[in-house]
C-alpha cells in the first residue's frame, strides 16, 4: 500500500473533501462516457450515485469516530458499537433496485439497458471504496471500469459478428408469409430452434411480426442471412436483435 496516502486514510477535513471530490470526479467521468453514447443514465446520474455511495461510508466512519471519542462514555455504558459497513451495505442493494428500473424490454422482445444498470452498480461500488478511503482500489477500479466501457464495445462487436447464434426480428404483411420466411432461413444452412410469432392488430396498424432464434451451421456473415430474408415478398422490416 502507498504510504503516500496514509495521511488521507484517517477521517479529517482534508480527507473528507478529497473523497467527496474524487467521488464526483470519477463518477462524472464514467457518466460522461455513457452520456456520449446517449444512454439513459448520464453524467449527473453517475455523479450522484457515486457521491451518495461515498457519503454513506463517510457517515458510518464519522459515527464510529464519534463513538470512540465524544460519545465514548455513553457508548461504554450501553455497550454499543457500530459496524462501519452497515450503511454502505444497503447502497449495494439499493442501487441494484435503481438499476433494475433502467432495464427495458422493448416490443421486439429485446432487453435493453443492462449495461447501464451494471455500470451504475459498479460505480456505486467504486463510490463505497472512495468513501472508505481505499485509494489504491479506487484508482485501479476507475481505470478498469472506464476501459470496460470505452474499449470493450469493439471486442463485443467482433464477438457478435462471429457468433453462430442469431435472433432475427421480422415484420411482414400477413401470416401467410411465415412459411416462406422459414423456408428461406432454412435454405441459408441454418437451424431454427425457436419462433415467436406475434399477430398484428389492424386497428393499431401493427403488422404481424416474428422473432426467430437461429443457429447457423457454418460461420457466415449475418448480413447475408438478413439480405436473403429481405428478398422474401411481403417482408417489411428485418432486424437482428
Amino acid at each position, binding site marked *: 500500500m502507498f504510504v503516500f496516502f496514509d495521511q488521507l486514510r484517517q477521517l479529517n477535513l482534508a480527507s473528507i473533501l478529497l473523497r467527496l471530490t474524487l467521488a464526483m470526479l470519477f463518477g462524472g467521468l464514467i457518466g460522461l462516457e455513457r452520456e456520449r453514447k446517449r444512454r439513459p443514465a448520464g453524467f449527473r446520474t453517475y455523479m450522484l450515485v457515486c457521491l451518495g455511495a461515498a457519503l454513506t461510508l463517510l457517515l458510518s466512519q464519522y459515527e464510529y469516530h464519534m463513538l470512540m471519542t465524544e460519545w465514548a462514555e455513553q457508548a461504554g455504558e450501553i455497550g454499543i458499537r457500530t459496524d462501519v459497513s452497515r450503511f454502505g*451495505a444497503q447502497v449495494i442493494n439499493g442501487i441494484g433496485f435503481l438499476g433494475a428500473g433502467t432495464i427495458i424490454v422493448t416490443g421486439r*422482445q429485446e*432487453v435493453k439497458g443492462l449495461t447501464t444498470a*451494471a455500470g451504475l452498480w459498479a460505480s456505486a461500488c467504486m463510490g463505497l471504496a472512495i468513501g472508505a478511503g481505499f485509494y489504491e482500489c479506487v484508482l485501479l*477500479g476507475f481505470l*478498469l471500469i472506464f476501459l470496460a466501457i470505452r474499449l470493450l464495445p469493439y471486442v463485443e462487436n467482433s*464477438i457478435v459478428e462471429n457468433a453462430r447464434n442469431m435472433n432475427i426480428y421480422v415484420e411482414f404483411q400477413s401470416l401467410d408469409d411465415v412459411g416462406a420466411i422459414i423456408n428461406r432461413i432454412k435454405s441459408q444452412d441454418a437451424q431454427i430452434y425457436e419462433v415467436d410469432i406475434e399477430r398484428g392488430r389492424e386497428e393499431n396498424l401493427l403488422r404481424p411480426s416474428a422473432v426467430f432464434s437461429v443457429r447457423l451451421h457454418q460461420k457466415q456473415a449475418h448480413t447475408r442471412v438478413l439480405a436473403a430474408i429481405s428478398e422474401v415478398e411481403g417482408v417489411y422490416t428485418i432486424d437482428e436483435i
Partner: protein
Amino acid sequence: MSAFFDSLREINMVSVSVRMLLAVVCGGVIGMEREYKRRPAGFRTHILICLGAAMTTLTSQYLFLYMHYYTDMARLGAQVVAGIGFIGAGTIIVTRQQRVKGLTTAAGLWTSAIVGLALGGGFYEGGIFTTVLILLAELVFARLEYRMLENAPEINLYMEYTDRVCLEKVLKLFRELNLKILNLEITRPTGSEHHNACAIFSLRLNKKCKVEKLLADIHATRGVLSVEEL
C-alpha cells in the same frame, strides 16, 4: 489451500491489483460465452458486475484488516447477493405466450457477481475454479445439448392451414399415430377470413414414426397449405 496464493491474501497493492484484474478476466470469460450466444447480458455487463462485487469485499477487508475498524467483513458482500438478484430480475421477460425467458441470463449474472465476491475476498481457489467449471459446463454441455437436439425424439412443426376442421383432422392424425403434443401455439389473423392461420406444434415422436412420413401425412390432409419442420 494453495500456498501459491498465500502472499496475496493480505491487503497490499499487489494483491488488490491481482484480485481486480482477475475479476475482470473471470467476468469477461463468463460474459463472452453469453455474448456469443446473443443473450442480452454480454461481455461488458458481466465484467462490470464481477468487478463491482470484487470491490465490495476488497473494501470491507480494507476497512477491517488495514484500517482496523469494527466491522463485519461479510456485510458489504452479503448485499451483493441480494442487489444483483434485483438487476437479474430486470432481464427476465414473460413473453405474450406466457413463456419465461432470460432466467439463465439472470442466473449467470448472479453467479459472476458471486465469483467477483470470492476473488475480491482473496479466495482465489474458489473464484478461479468456479469460473473454469462454468466455462466447462457452457462449452461441453451446450455442445451435448445440440447433439441431443439433433436426434431428439421431439420436433417442432410449423403448419399453415385454412380452417378449424383441418386443425381437428391433424390433431386426430396425431392421436392415431400416438404422438404426444407437448405444446401447441396457434396464431390467427384477427378479423379476416381470407387469411390462413398457422400453428406451431411441439411433438414427441415414438420409434415407429418417421418424420418424413409424418410430414407427408399432414401435407395430405385437406386444408393444410404447408408444413415445415423447424
